[in-house]
């Protein structure tokens, strides 16, 4: 690869060596993938969602395959932020890539507490705020569906955070650009989209929803056209960078997200199919840019709007 293409992307003060990250919940705490992939090759990776205290998650069954996709209802099982800091982060100290901590709370105060704890970790480059989770604070409908909630939460986190804040948005809304605008107004440094689309599979043998949680989140190749569309829509409405995620399984789809307006992309479900897929995608992007005569990946970000 004696290519002179510049793959670096800036998000605030952070420089990513390339636009390819791996997505929360599909890459563990990074360590699990070291056997399959040199993590240093990645632009960065996002941890499994962390909460203040360890969470057991939902009852099984938690996953089920669907055409070109899968549903999951893990229920944010995680080891808790303290264990993450003391047991996982030290093992990652020699890794030369950006680690983004994905955080999740059931109250605004919990998000703030998580932010404060992670403030002190030099190893963490940014926080990704998962607002796409059910039953936060006011209960009832999904928290992240309401732009006011997103504004209040983002502002509260921004006030205490020493790190850039990425707000991760749910696609299960009328108008995702409106939510993105709320995040931007509250000071978010970037938004990432999309989280999973709510779905259900029914087991015709038991005549019940297959997942113990009944509904689950649809991810995988099936959803990529929805993600690309939403990135395209949001790009026209906000100025902060967008991180594109949803169904990326090869460099062509990754490029579609970049062209729609994403500065960085995340690979989720595809990691399960091919643990080293992100490496292939990085190379695929490089080859494309080379062949098309682009000097830098930033030349194609949002190019589909021209």
């Amino acid at each position, binding site marked *: 690869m004696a290519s002179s293409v510049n793959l670096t992307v800036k998000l605030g003060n952070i420089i990513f060596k390339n636009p390819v990250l791996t997505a929360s919940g599909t890459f563990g705490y990074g360590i699990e*993938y070291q056997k399959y992939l040199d993590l240093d090759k990645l632009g960065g990776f996002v941890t499994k969602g962390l909460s203040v205290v360890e969470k057991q998650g939902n*009852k*099984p*069954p938690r996953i089920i395959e669907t055409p070109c996709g*899968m549903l999951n209802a893990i229920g944010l099982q995680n080891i808790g932020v303290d264990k993450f800091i003391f047991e996982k982060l030290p093992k990652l100290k020699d890794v030369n890539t950006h680690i983004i901590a994905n955080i999740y709370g059931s109250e605004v105060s919990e998000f703030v507490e998580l932010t404060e704890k992670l403030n002190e970790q030099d190893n963490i480059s940014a926080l990704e705020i998962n607002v796409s989770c059910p039953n936060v604070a006011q209960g009832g409908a999904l928290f992240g569906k309401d732009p006011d909630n997103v504004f209040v939460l983002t502002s509260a986190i921004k006030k205490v955070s020493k790190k850039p804040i990425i707000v991760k948005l749910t696609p299960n809304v009328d108008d995702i650009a409106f939510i993105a605008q709320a995040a931007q107004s509250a000071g978010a440094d970037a938004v990432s989209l999309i989280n999973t689309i709510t779905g259900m599979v029914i087991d015709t043998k038991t005549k019940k929803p297959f997942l113990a949680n009944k509904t689950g989140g649809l991810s995988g190749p099936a959803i990529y056209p929805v993600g690309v569309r939403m990135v395209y829509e949001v790009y026209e409405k906000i100025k902060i960078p967008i991180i594109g995620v949803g169904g990326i399984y090869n460099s062509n789809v990754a490029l579609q997200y970049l062209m729609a307006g994403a500065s960085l992309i995340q690979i989720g479900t595809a990691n399960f199919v091919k643990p080293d897929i992100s490496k292939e995608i990085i190379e695929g992007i490089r080859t494309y840019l080379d062949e098309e005569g682009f000097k830098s990946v930033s030349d194609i970000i949002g190019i589909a709007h021209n």
Partner: protein
Amino acid sequence: MELKILENIEIAQNTFSLKIDNPNLFDALAGQFFMVRINGFNYPLLRRPFSIADFNENYIEIIYRVVGEGTKILTKKKAGEFIDILGPLGNGFSDIGTGKKIFLVGGGIGVAPLIYLKNVIESQYRLPYKAYFGFNFKEEIYVDFGEIATMDGSVGFNGNVVDLVEKELDENSIVFACGPTLMLKRLAYVCYDKNCKMQVSLESRMACGIGVCLGCVVETQDGYKKVCDNGPVFDYREIVWQAL
């Protein structure tokens, strides 16, 4: 890892043996499994988990039953083609040489990993063992050792393999078991009763197979554990059987 298929043939009704060229780059324990990619494209999307039915310097064997779309497509693969496998994954059977009387108890396609275990016991540990395998009917049988139970009585003991093995077990036994969940549950209650040891290999829907998706968990005395990397082999006392 893309490995060459040596053979993919039907060895019993709806049951295939897939032999793959062994590159001799890794070891594998009885009870471990591979995540197999069915196709080079997006459908079916996820890899399928299959236990190791045999492993030697020449080949890796998987024995699979055709149950859905993935396994159906798998039957079309021919010798000479390549197949993408990830593994070996998970923890295999352990404490084999504990001096206890060894029992292999399998049901249906769950007999597969016990074939490799038997080979390991014979070649590595050179210990005596007894094997009890249950099937629904004659045409399903793909194993040439052990005592057989069939639900329709067409071969061997007429009924459930648990009923067949029950009387043999006592506190000096160690059981290595794999099979349908209901069979394992029954066997677990027998083992509690007889106070014998048992390791069970469990099944669960998997997305990653490597411990990151948290999709495959099973309820244990210590909360949820991942079948793919805390298992698939568990001490039966760990499992909350009522949840299964």
